[in-house]
């Protein structure tokens, strides 16, 4: 293209030929972006401790830290006192349940130490989870023979999730009332949330207050927004019992 900024004219830059610094800058930034995408998981793992320490000190999340991001899809999020909490289990069950926190705590307890992996990429490794296996809750209610699926509801009135009954019977899905070594806080979806270890974070519905047993998988909130219903981390189900 004809251009009055002739590179060889010494007029503007006497005695020197212009250097393509703009192009170098662009290529440099894009190169770093490419490297970051390709080996970012390794960098993320290596940065985890340092980045988290600084992040906690300054109160701002940093790239590569091991901290949770907080998602809420409504304008505010429910803060439910532990002593008024109730989990309803209904639908295709022999005995509908209304479980209070004390009821959940009197059932067989299960602990898991496992990552929380968001579908957008951020990850918190080695999170301590504690609660009751979802399948133990279902067994207590007595799922009828024609049931095939669950619909899960949140106290925020908008967030819903789904699981097939087969998925729900995995030994790595918790109705969790403790995480990170303490009661599940309201911003993490407490007093009770789901934790679906082999799937992306959006399946671990927050402020869980109702489980409806049905015979149809109904896509939940994030699935309606384009994310997969079968949200296996990495694309396929891990071997049962080895979360």
């Amino acid at each position, binding site marked *: 293209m004809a251009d009055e900024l002739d590179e060889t004219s010494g007029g503007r830059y006497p005695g020197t030929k212009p250097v393509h610094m703009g192009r170098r800058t662009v290529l440099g930034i894009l190169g770093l972006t490419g490297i970051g995408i390709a080996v970012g998981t390794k960098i993320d793992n290596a940065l985890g401790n340092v980045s988290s320490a600084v992040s906690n000190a300054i109160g701002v999340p940093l790239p590569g830290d091991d901290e949770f*991001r907080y998602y809420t899809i409504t304008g505010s999020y429910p803060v439910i006192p532990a002593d008024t909490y109730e989990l309803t289990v209904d639908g295709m069950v022999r005995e509908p349940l209304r479980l209070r926190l004390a009821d959940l705590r009197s059932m067989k307890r299960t602990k898991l130490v496992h990552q929380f992996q968001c579908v957008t990429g951020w990850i918190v490794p080695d999170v301590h989870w504690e609660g009751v296996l979802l399948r133990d809750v279902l067994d207590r209610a007595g799922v009828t023979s024609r049931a095939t699926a669950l619909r899960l509801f949140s106290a925020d009135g908008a967030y819903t999730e789904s699981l097939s009954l087969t998925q729900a019977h995995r030994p790595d899905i918790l109705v969790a009332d403790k995480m990170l070594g303490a009661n599940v806080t309201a911003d993490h979806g407490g007093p009770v949330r789901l934790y679906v270890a082999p799937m992306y974070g959006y399946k671990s519905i927050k402020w869980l207050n109702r489980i409806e047993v049905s015979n149809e998988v109904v896509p939940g909130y994030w699935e309606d927004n384009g994310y997969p219903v079968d949200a296996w981390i990495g694309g396929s189900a891990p071997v049962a019992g080895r979360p």
Partner: protein
Amino acid sequence: MSSLAEVSRFDLVERLVHWSTAIMMMTLIVTGAILYLPSLALRVGHRGLVENIHVITGLCLLGPLLLGVAGPWRKQLIKDLRRFDRWGASDFDWFRGPTRRSGLERDKFNGGQKIEAAFLGAAMVGALLTGVIMRFAPSSWITWATGATLVHDALFFAIVAAVVTHVAFALSKPDQLVSMFNGRIPRSWAKSHAGAWWSELEVSKGDVSEAGSAEPRGGSSP
């Protein structure tokens, strides 16, 4: 109407590209901060909506620039983009700071403006690529999505720093700020701050009204 005391610095296409990109960039920074910072995420909520605004704005971000270089109206924009690319001694010299610069005649943009433009241009492309991976990649690409998130988060900080610097400089340089609104800048500014560009204007336009009476050149910056 162009005053004799002023020269054209940005044409209409450049200003439209600048301001539409600026509005989208601010939208992206605000929605990005809501998505990223826990205190804002919990206060504002409505994550699905905020995410959609962020993603759609991000997908449109390069639109004005691409439109700007796509038609016959692109001439001056292309010319200025090339200025961002090509560096001479005076551009490197600019980084020595106002008191130590050697007074070489400068281009239409100084070294700081050139690095800012190149960085922001590249950062926009990088953020678009990583953002698309974060939002649209199949779930089996999770390793790449983690890398993309790392880069996207890092670019957030870098872009905010660049934009804050850009706005701070703009607010402290009224002549240049006004020129991004009305396209014009005083001739005295061009002579003293962008001597090489000023010489170029004299040669290419043969502007007798002012250049004829002006001394040949050498009005280098203090």
